[in-house]
């Protein structure tokens, strides 16, 4: 059984329906909202599997279904759905991980007063995300892109009574908006130069050869090809959404939302939207690859941004103390990996890492959520500890997630996808800096994850909350187990043969650069793990106040990292300051220049009024007094009819209308 491109809309429509049901159901009616959300998501998962089945029958084929949305005079705006392996794999991932996270939320949000709303927002988010995945038009993609942003805003600020959550929601929304402006400009430019926004349209789409040739053929004043400039603008949107340097600042703050939200949106799916977008428009991004004359290729920028992000995220993660923030910076770092893979020309490796990362990062976040729930919302790893014996299931699953993320060889899917990326970076002939950044991040990833595990689960409990923690119910642990199994089982996508990458792009040639690189990365992972254990595992933390060993060794560096390299302060000092100054200037202009003019006019008015009054009082008053006295007398008589009740006046008007209409008909005046 397969699902055709025409009926692809069913996949996002079901969660949307669930969101609507959740929105109109009564606040107390928890089971309807949650039940419909989970049911809709599971059906969407089945549909996605059918779609995947169909897509795999013809992997090279981009099945699309376009339709007219509305027409404005001569131009018709068209939207469409697209079914190819990329879309289908992503849909399966989002619906599968989504369903598990929905189930987990049943337990995690059990005591929340706004339980129903939470599921409504979650379904809405899922609908928007799935709509983004199936879009065959940059316009439909952009609409869903913004809806995803809105859902993210609502969910980060879900506990809006906490000022930090409200601020984080605002920050996430505004920061991503900066990137979205670039995306919008790119879309407008693309539409202006190609006249279409459909990806595939039987030869006329923007990702098809004719348009790409004409776009890469146009050269701008600065020497860039038009396709490069458009590609970079679209990449801006991806930078904002996927938390890439320099717009990564919102992602760690987004951890203020409930943990299932962090797992679903800020680890598994939404932040992957940026990577998906670049992979989707990959033909456009790479259209300039064959031009030798241009100063910079779009993908080179992508590769370097990705490399910087991967390294920076991993560095900062080493110095964070909040369990969710460590994972957040690890997400930033892993997204950097994906961008790196896209930049060095292997979008299939990027999608492969995206899929495996979605599973193990969701696993890690849900594990963290399980810990937080058990420890009564204690998130500081210095105050946790000793949970290994108290929460055996959570510990085992978290450890699997940690090993997948660190890239422990062979058994774990993360290893294979990271290998694919490193191989691609190795094969890139422009620069080898991204490869080095990637290798350094491998060590750091293994290091900070070891630190996280050692501090959270080993040693003794260092606070009362951690002391009394106990394992959660099956509704929370079962999704963990399923995700853990997936985190290991997804290895089959790459081993024994790179099946997934061939399905995504049948013409792909994967050049194997021998086993040297693989051995090197295994050694690096081992080094990271043992370094982490050597520093944090040998002498376990005894008290909350005890200083971090690394902090002891290099306090300045660690302080800078703990402060996230000061990006927030930098932005507050530059962008914020400019904004304040502009506002002050506008205020001064308003107050002194425009206000002065108005004041002058007012004084002029007062002066002429004074002159007028003199004339009035001296010459005219006597006669008018007598006239007005008689008017006042008659006015008093008529004022009885003025009850002051507006209803009465309106009623009189309506009755008068009826009477007039009847009089016209009766009188025969027609």
């Amino acid at each position, binding site marked *: 059984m397969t699902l055709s491109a025409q009926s692809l809309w069913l996949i996002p429509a079901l969660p949307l329906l669930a969101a609507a049901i959740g929105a109109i159901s009564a606040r107390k009616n928890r089971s309807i909202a949650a039940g419909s959300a989970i049911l809709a998501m599971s059906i969407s998962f089945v549909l996605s599997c059918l779609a995947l089945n169909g897509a795999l029958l013809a992997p090279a084929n981009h099945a699309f279904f376009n339709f007219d949305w509305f027409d404005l005079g001569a131009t018709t705006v068209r939207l469409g759905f697209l079914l190819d392996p990329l879309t289908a794999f992503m849909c399966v991932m989002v619906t599968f991980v989504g369903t598990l996270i929905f189930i987990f939320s049943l337990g995690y949000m059990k005591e929340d007063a706004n339980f129903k709303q939470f599921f409504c927002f979650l379904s809405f988010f899922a609908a928007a995300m799935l709509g983004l995945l199936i879009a065959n038009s940059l316009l439909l993609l952009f609409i869903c892109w913004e809806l995803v942003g809105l859902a993210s805003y609502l969910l980060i600020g879900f506990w809006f009574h906490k000022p930090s959550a409200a601020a984080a929601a605002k920050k996430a929304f505004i920061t991503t908006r900066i990137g979205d402006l670039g995306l919008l400009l790119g879309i407008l430019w693309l539409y202006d130069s190609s006249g279409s926004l459909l990806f595939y349209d039987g030869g006329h789409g923007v990702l098809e050869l004719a348009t790409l040739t004409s776009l890469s053929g146009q050269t701008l004043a600065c020497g860039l090809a038009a396709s490069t400039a458009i590609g970079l603008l679209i990449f801006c949107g991806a930078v904002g959404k996927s938390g890439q340097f320099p717009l990564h600042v919102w992602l760690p703050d987004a951890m203020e939302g409930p943990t299932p939200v962090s797992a679903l949106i800020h680890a598994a799916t939404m932040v992957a939207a940026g990577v998906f977008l670049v992979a989707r428009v990959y033909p456009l991004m790479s259209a300039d690859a064959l031009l030798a004359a241009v100063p910079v290729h779009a993908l080179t920028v992508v590769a370097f941004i990705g490399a910087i992000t991967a390294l920076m995220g991993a560095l900062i993660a080493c110095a964070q103390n909040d369990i969710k923030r460590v994972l957040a910076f690890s997400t930033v770092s892993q997204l950097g990996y994906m961008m790196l893979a896209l930049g060095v020309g292997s979008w299939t490796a990027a999608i492969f890492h995206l899929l495996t990362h979605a599973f193990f990062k969701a696993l890690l976040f849900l594990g963290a959520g399980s810990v937080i729930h058990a420890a009564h919302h204690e998130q500081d790893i210095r105050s946790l500890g000793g949970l290994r014996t108290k929460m055996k299931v959570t510990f085992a699953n978290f450890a699997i997630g940690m090993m997948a993320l660190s890239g422990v060889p062979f058994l774990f899917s993360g290893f294979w996808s990271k290998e694919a990326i490193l191989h691609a970076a190795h094969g890139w002939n422009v620069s080898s800096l991204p490869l080095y950044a990637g290798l350094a991040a491998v060590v750091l990833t293994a290091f900070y994850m070891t630190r996280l595990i050692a501090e959270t689960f080993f040693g003794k409990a260092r606070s009362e909350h951690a002391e009394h923690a106990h394992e959660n119910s099956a509704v929370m642990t079962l999704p963990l187990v399923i995700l853990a199994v997936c985190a290991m089982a997804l290895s089959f996508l790459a081993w024994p043969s790179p099946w997934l990458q061939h399905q995504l792009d049948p013409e792909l040639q994967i050049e194997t650069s021998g086993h040297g690189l693989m051995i090197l990365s295994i050694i690096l992972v081992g080094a990271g793990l043992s370094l982490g254990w050597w520093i944090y595992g040998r002498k376990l933390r005894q008290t909350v106040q005890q200083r971090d060993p690394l902090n002891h060794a290099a306090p300045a560096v660690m302080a800078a990292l703990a402060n996230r390299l000061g990006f927030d302060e930098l932005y507050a000092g530059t962008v914020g300051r400019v904004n304040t100054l502009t506002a002050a200037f506008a205020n001064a202009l308003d107050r002194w220049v425009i206000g002065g003019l108005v004041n002058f006019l007012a004084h002029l008015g007062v002066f002429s009024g004074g002159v007028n009054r003199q004339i009035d009082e001296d010459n005219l008053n006597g006669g008018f007094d007598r006239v007005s006295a008689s008017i006042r007398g008659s006015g008093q008589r008529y004022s009885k009819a003025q009850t002051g009740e507006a209803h009465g006046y309106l009623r009189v008007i*309506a009755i008068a209308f009826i009477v007039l209409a009847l009089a016209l008909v009766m009188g025969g005046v027609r």
Partner: protein
Amino acid sequence: MSPLHLCLLISTGLFCIGLAGALARSNTILVLLGIELMLNAANINFIAFWRFGPSPVAGNGMIFVLFAIAVAAAEAAVGLALIIAVYRHQKNIRLQDSTTLKG
């Protein structure tokens, strides 16, 4: 019955719902919204005649409605501002209580 008749009857319905609301409700905001509904009913008439009637100049009905919507927007803004001002003065927005201007 032609589509034009149907459209006009629908707009009559909307107009009278608005009228009944404006006459019956004591909350000033709802009275104002009733009046908005009546305006919308008038707009529906314009569009109905534009679509189904003999239209010598194409687009005239639409232009009418566009202007009507613009003026309605101004009306709503001023009306609601007035309501807020009244609320600040008399601490409620019951229309029958604002009778200060009676004779």
